[in-house]
């Protein structure tokens, strides 16, 4: 029996490495892209954990590692107490019903040959949830729920705008009555005036169905608005994890501080006065991450120890940081 006190999802030392091989067919392994290199976090029931970082930091791969697509290289993914990395694919398939995803690109994530009805009904069919006319009834109900006219069920994805397609993607995610939804950059492909519509919709649905979200995004203002707690990732690792106000008001990790100071504010007066930390260089390759702290090549504060030893993540009354220099 699931214990309602334990977190809905607990990820322990998750690693997802992609093998690089050389030679045709039976190529031998010559290296690995360490996309996710040991991350741990928990998501409590009903909360939203934001996962933020720049492109290539491993935030999306973390999401994919949770749903076991691909199977992680090592680590545990405990969903409702069950380790998804240990169960067989049939059990996994049945468990995935509770774990759904909303993708970034509403153009690429809907099959252009299927009608809206087929798209949204698919999870119900796969998981054998509804039969016959009940399926159509439920599709209509879901469309209504996400703010679309239920009469559109016979249409195809190309007949919709980006914002409407994202609503269809959300309806599909809800079709199997999941408890946990991974939202991977759900608004970054949308126009500014549409983004707020989708943010508000996701929030309303969370309240209505007591959903738990992992919200993956690169936009720090959106993540702050949406999440209860936030994890900041850099080059395959979590560098800082704290609740919203702690992270944004008193960021401890030098990377988080630089990231926050790089976000432009829509306020000309404050922009002129702001001190901006401009990081030098770029994110190193995850094939050969730097020795020691992954951030040491760009960190304005790096000391000798940062080049020698990888910092452990340490807890300061609920505010976790992986930095040698934080006391």
């Amino acid at each position, binding site marked *: 029996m699931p214990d309602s006190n334990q977190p809905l999802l607990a990820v322990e030392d998750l690693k997802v490495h992609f093998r690089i091989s050389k030679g045709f067919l039976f190529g031998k392994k010559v290296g690995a892209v360490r996309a996710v290199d040991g991350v741990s976090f928990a998501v409590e029931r009903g909360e939203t954990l934001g996962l933020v970082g*720049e*492109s290539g930091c491993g935030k999306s791969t973390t999401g994919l590692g949770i749903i076991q697509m691909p199977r992680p290289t090592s680590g545990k993914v405990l969903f409702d107490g069950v380790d998804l990395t240990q169960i067989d694919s049939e059990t996994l398939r049945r468990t995935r019903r509770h774990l759904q995803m909303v993708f970034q690109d509403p153009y690429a994530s809907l099959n252009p040959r299927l009608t809206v009805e087929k798209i949204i009904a698919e999870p119900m069919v796969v998981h054998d949830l509804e039969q016959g006319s009940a399926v159509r009834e439920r599709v209509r109900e879901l469309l209504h729920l996400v703010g679309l006219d239920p009469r559109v069920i016979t249409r195809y994805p190309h007949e919709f*705008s980006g*914002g409407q397609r994202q609503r269809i993607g959300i309806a599909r995610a809800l079709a199997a009555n999941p408890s946990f939804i991974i939202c991977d950059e759900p608004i970054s492909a949308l*126009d*500014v*005036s*549409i*983004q*707020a*519509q989708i*943010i*508000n919709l996701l*929030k309303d649905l969370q309240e209505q169905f007591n959903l738990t979200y992992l919200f993956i995004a*690169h936009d*720090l*203002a*959106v993540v*702050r*608005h*949406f999440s209860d707690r936030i994890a900041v990732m850099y080059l395959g690792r979590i560098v800082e994890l704290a609740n919203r106000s702690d992270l*944004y008001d008193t960021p401890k990790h030098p990377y988080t501080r*630089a*990231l*926050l*100071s*790089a*976000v*432009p*504010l*829509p*306020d*000309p*007066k*404050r*922009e*002129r006065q*702001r001190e*901006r930390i*401009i*990081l030098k260089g*770029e*994110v190193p390759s995850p094939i050969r991450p730097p020795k020691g702290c992954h951030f040491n090549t760009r960190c304005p504060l790096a000391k000798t120890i940062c080049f020698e030893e990888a910092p452990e993540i340490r807890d300061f009354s609920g505010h976790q940081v992986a930095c040698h220099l934080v006391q």
Partner: protein
Amino acid sequence: MGEPLLRVEGLRTIFQTSKQVVTAVSGISYSVDAGETVGIVGESGSGKSVSMLAVMRLVPSPAGRITEGRIWFQGRNLLDLNPAEMRAVRGKDIAMIFQDPMTSLNPVLSIGKHLVEPLKLHLGLTTTQAKTRAVELLQMVGIPDAANRLNDYPHQFSGGMRQRVMIALGLSCNPKLLIADEPTTALDVTIQAQIIDLVKRLRREFGMSVIWITHDLGIVAGLVDRVIVMYASHVVETASVDDLYEDPRHPYTLGLLSAIPRLDAAERTRLTPIPGKPPDLSNPPKGCPFAPRCGFSTADCLSEKPTLREVAPGHFSMCHLELSKQAFISLREVRVNA
């Protein structure tokens, strides 16, 4: 104040297919002074990029056509120039950098070839002189080991580095006007900060005017002197950057500002989205283009298109209701409570 560097008057650009005519830019006017940085803000399809392609005379033809208007640049109407004269302006006096540096650089030409060509063509440098200058330009935009990277191809550079190459290319002939079309949209936020910092520094050094096209109201706040807001092929508001953010006079601008989550907001408040979606430009609404989505529209707004009027000194808005931000907000509260 003398004649502005760039003055666009009544510019209209259409795209015609066998089935329909789409008005991408409907009779817009604005000007850019020498040394001024202007931000053009709008969503996809608002006409912001097409209006700049028109200035460069690069509107894709035969589908796209400039049907009306004049584009005055240094005393000449660019629309009167023949192709050879226009080529002499393009890249030399007016340079443009694009959103995606991968598709705007030629993948089979080295970075050196990209940089040397305009220097020889526009400035008449010899190959050796041009190469020396190319290395200087790459150093100026912060490309490490510039001399050795001249022979590298675009795919050997990261996204941020490619955008730096694009900027070096844009600045190679000391343009008077640099048009930047969403140059940081494809980049990460820390790299975006580097590029914005670079453009700010180079703008000072070169004393050029910059037009920065973006959908991000945050970027322009710290970068530009004046903002032009475009919606559905129209300029709906233009003002100095301080006035625009402090006292937006067009409901669309106000809507955009309340629809984005802000890092500097005190607490989480529910966002106020703009309902609906932008109009179909092949069949635009008869009255104000924003009226179908506007929370304040009246019968007038739906039947008659407003003109861009000066609502405060230097502050123009295309709205029948000449209200202040405060008036809009109280009006909105009244509606919500009712």
